[in-house]
């Protein structure tokens, strides 16, 4: 009897809040993403709980660190599924980690919304439990990077990619696009946590490219940008950071100095581009809470998926996994980057996928100038000499 009371008591206690699981790197080379996630989660929770939470309960987050390592990432997901028994998991920003986690999600049948792991296979595997409200390699290349290269008349492209799932995937897609458009290119493979790129850059210099598509994540990108300038490769050849956030970290300018001028990067956020009222609200809430403007767009990406998760639970009217997936498939929710609606056609990466519009931004006098797509541009692309 005592045991029964104890069990029901703790059960009742556990049900006082709704827990959303989050996975992402809080340590390792991209620990800065973990920090961006924490900020986004804090604002999202304020927003949701101020409206009374979900199903009449307060929403909480359990954030497990992945360290950016696939094995650790899978274990983190498993912990959330078995120990914390969360009804849904969101987050992730490394493709290698996400590819390991979707297998766990599939095994435990836990709905999982990814925000910033771009590899096509994540949704291409067509797992019923896996969703992505964020960029996908093919989308980023086909709709933004490749047309940007073509429309600005670049003549020789250098693709530099790290040996990670994201790097390999996005470089392959870029190669296919360049071949189709008939633009000559050269690909250079580099190590994921490389520091010294002098040799690589000297090799590239001999190829005389006018744009370098740098698929390198983390501090490595800072090394790459500053060293490209030292060996005299940039700004004659412009560098486009194919991921984005490292070019926006607080330390970017300190680390690269003048070499950052005219550098380009992908982004889904800009101070002057607000696609929805939620975007403005996010910006104001962030400033109020942290006393500065948001920089890393991944803060906003995680904010979006937490909102999507809360919305799905509340429409499902339960924390049952099947009900949540059904609700997710019917999602029609305004977030900061548009209205989320997941693709339902099976067989491609577009299944359970929604991609926000992206921007190509250039640093000009340390100001962010949107240079592509044209309809969102706040200035013209400057080429180096």
């Amino acid at each position, binding site marked *: 009897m005592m045991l029964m009371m104890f069990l029901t008591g703790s059960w009742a206690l556990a049900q006082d809040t709704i827990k959303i699981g989050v996975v992402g790197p*809080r*340590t*390792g*080379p991209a*620990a*800065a993403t*973990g*920090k961006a996630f924490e900020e986004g989660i804090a604002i999202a929770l304020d927003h949701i709980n101020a409206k009374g939470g979900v199903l009449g309960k307060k929403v909480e987050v359990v954030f497990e660190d992945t360290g950016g390592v696939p094995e650790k990432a899978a274990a983190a997901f498993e912990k959330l599924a078995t120990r914390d028994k969360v009804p849904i998991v969101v987050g992730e920003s490394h493709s290698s980690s996400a590819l390991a986690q979707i297998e766990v999600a599939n095994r435990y049948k836990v709905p999982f919304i990814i925000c910033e792991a771009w590899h096509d296979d994540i949704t291409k595997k067509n797992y019923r439990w896996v969703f992505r409200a964020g960029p996908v390699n093919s989308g980023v290349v086909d709709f933004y990077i490749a047309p940007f290269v073509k429309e600005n008349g670049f003549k020789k492209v250098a693709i530099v990619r790290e*040996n990670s799932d994201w790097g390999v995937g996005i470089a392959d897609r870029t190669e296919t696009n360049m071949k189709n458009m008939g633009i000559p290119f050269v690909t*250079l*493979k*580099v*190590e994921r*946590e*490389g*520091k*010294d790129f*002098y*040799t*690589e850059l*000297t*090799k590239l210099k*001999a190829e005389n490219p006018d744009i370098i598509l740098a698929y390198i994540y983390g*501090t490595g990108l*800072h*090394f790459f940008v500053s*060293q490209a*300038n*030292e*060996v*005299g490769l940039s700004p004659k050849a412009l560098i486009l950071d194919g991921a984005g956030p490292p070019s926006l*970290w*607080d*330390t970017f300018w*300190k*680390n690269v*100095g*003048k070499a950052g001028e005219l550098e380009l990067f992908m982004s889904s956020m800009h101070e002057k581009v607000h696609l929805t009222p939620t975007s403005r609200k996010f910006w104001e809430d962030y400033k109020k809470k942290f006393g500065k403007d948001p920089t890393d767009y991944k803060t906003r990406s995680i904010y979006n998926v937490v909102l999507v998760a809360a919305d799905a639970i509340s429409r499902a009217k339960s924390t049952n996994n099947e009900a949540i997936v059904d609700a997710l498939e019917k999602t029609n929710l305004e977030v900061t980057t548009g209205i989320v609606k997941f693709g339902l056609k099976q067989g491609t990466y577009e299944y359970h996928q929604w991609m926000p519009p992206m921007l190509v931004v250039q640093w000009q006098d340390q100001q962010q100038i949107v240079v592509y797509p044209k309809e969102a541009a706040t200035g013209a692309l400057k080429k180096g000499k």
Partner: protein
Amino acid sequence: MSEFLMYLTNGVVMGVINAISAIGVSLIVGIMKVVNFAHGELYIFAGYFSYHLSVSLGLSPLLAMPLSVFFIFLLGILMERTLIRPTYGDEMYSLIITFVLSIVLQNAALLIFGPYPNKPPNLLSGATNIFGLFHYGNQRLLSFGLSICILLSIFYLIKKTWFGKSVRAISQDRGMASLVGVNHLKINMVSFGLGAALAGTAGVLIAPIFPVTPTGSSAISLTAFVVVVLGGMGSLKGCVIGGLVLGILENMGAAYISTMYRHIFGFIILILVLVFRPWGLFGQKA
């Protein structure tokens, strides 16, 4: 041709940087038979100290650099007195202690300094055109020059001074050295401090080129151990040669074989050395 010279120059510069990162490990192994796994963390802390002293407190980088090294020296002395001294004679014990310390310090760095990479201000910016052949970063050239000066001073200190003679005496025969009046506890303490300070020196010299991150310490320790094993445990000359071999090999391998496997070339040589000359290129055969 100019490209080949660029690869070679970069190999030599990276080689000297490898040597300066590793020489502290070599010194401590040679004298005290202690493998300091927390070496990389001391390097990282020095980089962050140098950054905060010059950027956050506004000191001149020329003052911030020696000051940071001094702090790391004190930290080294503190480590020796509290954690390392009880382990003398038990290599496994000291191995575990420094390994645990490295994890603690790494997480402390993450907590104190945050996850972002940081770099102290450059003393020089821009690049120099070397003989009209290629451009090379000025800060790299400066760090290269300073590293050579420091390596030479260490050689002088160990080979020519009374302190150096005592250190070598202890490393050869601790008991005998004590009998003739060398205070081995004091020498150990100062040597450990010196080894730590050398990790710190590497940190402040290299951080303006490669910004420090809390989690970057493992890679620094690993490279240092590879260099030390390559050159021969405890041999200072071996440390310099080991560093150069690694630097040149990695750059040539990346240039002419594959950029993706840059670090594998170093490990291949390491395996070959361990198979055919396990005591290292310049180590003492046991």
